Every structure is written in C-alpha cells, then in structure tokens.
C-alpha cells in the first residue's frame, strides 16, 4: 500500500463521530490531504458500501472539494454582498495582480491558490480576506496585495 493510500485509509477509517457517510468520509480525506485523489473515491465507496459513481456525485457537488493536490498557500477573498459594496472586487483584482494571475486558480509554480469565497463570516469588518484560513478584515487593495507578496517572500527566506 502506498503512503497516499495509507493516509486515505487512516482518514476514512479514523472518523470519530457516530454518523459516518459518504460526505463525512470525503471531508475527512479533504482535511487530511487537502484534496480528493481518485484512490479516495474508491476507498470511500468501499467503506460506505456505495459505488464510485455515487461518491463522485457527492464530491463533484460541493465546491470545497478539489481533485488535484493543493498549492502551498491559499488566499481567499470574500465575494459576499457586504464585502462587495465596500470594494471586494478591487481587492480581488489587486490580489490577482500580486499573484500574477488572470482569474481564480493556482499559480503555475504551485505556490498559491487564489479563490473567491461566498462569505467568510466577518461581515462587520468588510472587505475580508483569508490567508491559509486566517481572516483579515478591512483590507484595502494595497494591504491585500502586500499580504500575498509577504506570504510568498516569507517562504523564500525559509520562515
């Protein structure tokens, strides 16, 4: 068994809560690996006594699942109405420019994922962004771009 398969199996079999389903198993894999590899679809199908087809139906429905390995860092910009009306679009444009990207997605070097999030939940501090799940409120296009640049720089210097 490969290392990847072992990690998938541990995640799927190690769920602590009583109600174990296709969705809960996929979330467990996502938590462990940050994505759902093909092997996980098979493992989850076997573990939950369903089919790969059924598992794929669920996995493809929820946009939080991705199917290739994640970039090292994730930057999310909130796209909700509260953020929209105080400049979320300009913030997102600025983040894309700092990352050298045209739209949502991963950078070619696999260092960064840039994504819109439907609501990060800190609406009183709009516009909001998140860097690796840590929230930052009242960002400006400049401060948002700086966070992207700082984050990438920090890694280069080995933290």
């Amino acid at each position: 068994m490969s290392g990847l398969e072992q990690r998938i199996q541990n995640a799927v079999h190690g769920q602590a809560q009583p109600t174990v389903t296709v969705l809960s198993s996929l979330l467990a894999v996502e938590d462990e690996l940050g994505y759902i590899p093909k092997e996980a679809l098979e493992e989850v199908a076997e573990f939950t006594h369903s089919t790969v087809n059924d598992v794929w139906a669920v996995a493809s429905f929820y946009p939080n699942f991705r199917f290739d390995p994640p970039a090292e860092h994730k930057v999310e910009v909130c796209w909700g109405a509260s953020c929209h009306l105080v400049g979320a679009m300009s913030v997102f444009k600025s983040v894309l420019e700092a990352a050298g990207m045209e739209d949502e997605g991963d950078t070619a070097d696999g260092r960064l994922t840039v994504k819109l999030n439907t609501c990060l939940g800190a609406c009183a501090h709009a516009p909001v962004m998140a860097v690796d799940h840590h929230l930052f409120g009242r960002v400006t296009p400049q401060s948002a771009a700086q966070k992207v640049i700082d984050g990438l720089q920090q890694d280069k210097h080995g933290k």
Partner: protein
Amino acid sequence: MASSFLEIGHEAQLRWQELVAGEKPWIRIGTALCGEAAGAFEIAGDVESELETQGVSALVSKVGCLGLCFAEPLMDVQLPGGHRIFYGNVSSDDIPEIISAHVSGGAPVVARALGYIQEAGSDAPLPDGIPDLNQHPMRIWENRIVLRNAGNIDPLDIYQYVANGGYRALHKALTDLDQNQTLEEVKASGLRGRGGAAFPTATKWSFLAGNPAQDKYVLCNCEEGDPGAFNDKNILESDPNTLVEGVIIAGYATGASKGYIFIRHGHDGPIERCRTAIEQARELGFLGKNILGSDFSYEIEVALTGDSYVAGEESALMEAIEGKRAMPRFRPPFPAQFGLFGKPTNINNVKTLSYVPEIVSNGGEWFASIGHDTSTGTVILCLSGNLKYTGMVEVPLGINLKDVIFEAAGGMRDGKNLKFLQTGGPLGGVLGADSIDVLLDFEILRAAGAIVGSGGLIAADDSVCIVDMTRSLIAFCQYESCGKCFPCRMGMSHLLEVLERICRLEGTSDDLTLMRNIGENMQAGSLCGHGQLGFNPVSSALRYFGSEFDRHISGHECPTGTCSMPRYSPALARR
C-alpha cells in the same frame, strides 16, 4: 458518579468568584470571527508576552463577541472586585501601557478606554472620565436574551456558563415539568422560527412530540451561508452552551432520541467550540443516559456539510447529513413523519433553539411580554455595509428599523446618505431609504417587501449602484442553486445574463418583462425557497429603484459609475 446539579452549581460559583473577585486581574479579549479578522488573536498573544515581560500576573480569557464588532480588537480589564473597563480598536502599541498602568498599576488608561460595564454586586467606585458602555448607541436599545453571555464568558468553559444561570432551565424541565408542560411553556412564549419562515416553534415541536416512534431527531441548522449574516456562527463561538442546552430541552419536549447540530465544514471556530460544549455537557451529566438522574436519555452529534447554501434548506439539510448532495426533497412526506434517515425529525435554526433555555427558566409569559403583537421576543441583527457602527445587536421585535440604522448603528459612515437596505439574506429584499420607517415585526416587514429572515442588514450609501448590487445578489443565487429544479437552475443563470447585459448598458426595453417572466416561473416551478424566493432581490430592487434600471437601459448610463468596474465571479463549480 455524576455530581448533582446543586454541587455543579456550587463549584461553578466558586470558580466564577475566583475570576471576578479573586487575587488576579481578569483580561478578556473578543475572539469570534469578527475579532479574528481584526487581529484579536495577535493581540491575545501580545498580551500574554507583555504580561511575562513585565512580570505581571493576570488571567487571560478568549471570550466571544460583545456585538461591538466595529471596535475590535476589543479587550477589557477587570481588577479583582472591580468593574470591567473596555479598550476598543486595540493595537499592539497600546498593550504595554494597558498592562503597566491598568493591570499592574490599577489605574485605567482613560484616554484609550471605550467604556465600562458595571459588575453586579461590586461596591467599587465607578471609573472617572470613562463612559458607561451600556449607554453606547449600539447597546442602549438592546435586550440580550440569547446573547446574555456573549463576550462575557469563556465559551470553552461550561462552568462559566453554569455560574451565569446555565443549565438551570434543563434542571427545571427535568425536575418540575413534564414533556408536555415544557412544550406548553414554549407555546406560551409565542416563539417563532428565526431561520426565515417565522413558523411557530411549539407547533412544529408538537408534530414531532405527537409521533410515537422510538427514534426521533432534533436538528439544529447552522449552515448559515448567507452573506451578511453571522449571528448563528457567532452564537456558537460566543456561547455554544446556550445552544446545546436548547437542543437538549427541545429533545426532552419532543421526546426525541438524538440531536444533530449541522455546521458548514471550514467554520473551525464554531465547530470546535460547539464540540467542546457537547463534551463538557456529557462530562457533567447534562447529556447521555439518565440526564441529571431523570429517565431522559439523549445525545448530540455535530454533523458537517460541504459548501452549499441550499444545505440550509431543511430537507436538503437532511440529505447532507445522510451524506448525499444537498438537494431539497419533495414534500409530503414532511420531516415530522419521514425525516432524517427516514425517522421523524424536527428542524430549527440556531437562534430559535438558543432562546429556549431562557424561556423555560423565566416562563413563556415573560418572553411573550417582549416584542410586538405576534412577533414575540427579540431579534438578533447583523449590521454591515456602509454603517458607522457595524456588528451585532439583539433588540426587541417591534423596534423601528430606522432607529436601528440611524441610532443603534449610528447612521452612515463619512456623512453619506442611506440609499437602501438589503434585508434578510440574499433571498430577502431591498428596502429604499424612504421605506425604513417600519416596525421590525415579521408581518409588517413582509408587507413592506422585506423579511427579518436571517437577521442580516446590509446598508448601502448613495455611492452604491442598485443594479450592480442586484447582479451581485443574483450571481450568488445562481452560484448556489443546487440544480435540482430546472426553473431555478436555468432561471438564475438567465436572470444573471440579463442583469449583466443591463450592467454593460446593453439592456433592451424588453429585459424587465423578461426577468419578471423568469421570476414567475422560478416561483411556480421550484421545490424550495431558493427558487421560490430567488426573484426577490430583483423584484424588490425594481419596486424601489425602477428608474435607476431605466437609466441603465434607456439612458445607457450608470449614475454611480459602478457598473464599469472590473467584475469577477467564482468558477461555476456546480455545473
């Protein structure tokens, strides 16, 4: 062996006295999602290291949200036996002085203080030159029932909850009331669902209570994907024990065997705090077999969903807990007959269930005396947008909406004028500035073309374009349509196309009629509220701002210039 409720209460009181009147000062820092976004975790780290540097001894707690989100990071210092002194918008530079002068030296930094809150039972003199925080515009209208502990107690410590009256309602229900009397208390309160539909809670419960099945479930809905609403997540972060107690009492009153609390995966703060509250309740004997020595046994589990707004719809929610795609079911059969895993089920929103402990403690009549007409109790509003004071307030129903906006929230920032209010989430409705002289009452607000809904209120000033805002709301609804019913799936896409055309100033004179036709089809042909109410953002915007749409279509101009700004949308992942 589990301790008696009396013993737990005694232990809780001892611990609480140690906190507020013990040897050491107590520092509390607000760390809900709003606090996190403002940098509260960094401030908490700075406070800890500065205490060490200066060699000062103090207790530091990460509490929830006081509601004054605009002032975050928000921390307060309480000297032993004294009152709480709050510091707002705290930066790292403020910490050394607050620690040396106040925590160590006993003299508040008056120039930096936001206000004080008087400690009940303390005879310490009130601080000079610092205002009473309860007189702040955002707090003066409040009546905090669900939020009574928010920002005051450590959400990870059940003893602090018990010391502040927690679990006395469950104890009362189990010792003094039978199942039916508990239900009657909720009925007398007039409590109605706070998830959007405002259906009487006791009536809903009675459907489940009347079902003789062995396995029955109570579901608590904390999907909360609404942009502009954060009160459910905030309750779980600030006082998860209130919700857990509410879910237990709901189980008792309906004769359910198990409760599920349903939260979106990725909301780590609410999930962790809720799980901790459940574990601690189990340790103290408030959950499990023979709760507090009664013959009532009950368990609660946290269930997670992937990203899906429609998963907040009650039948889609059950599908998601079963591990499937979050798509609504046909009804009948209704959940009380055939719900989760085919068992009888009752579904309530976080806020609804969080009222239950105080209703049982203080009696239904007490709750019914608050509010307006058949809209009893309070409403928890999330204030965001271009307002001066953004955050969360719990105010009695029946309050005038204009008082909420111009008094509690301080009106608009930078002296601008209010243009419109987006109410009740993306499926709610827009109210024009001239129409907000209206009472917050489920029926009155609905008649005005808006809804209380999730409690989200997004205020926009006159620099905001209504057409662009409507496009933004429809883009969300389109992205979140689950795709099961084609009138919603295709209707949302079609509406978005038309709105984008109008924003490009390429709209035609037929476009408004076309949108109305699509809207009617969506309403008639969709299984759930997402499609049935999905035209609300457009219809309410047209009702108040028809002329602004006309200027885009006939005049080929966007009066605010917003529509020409760059525009992005998430990838269409659910196609």
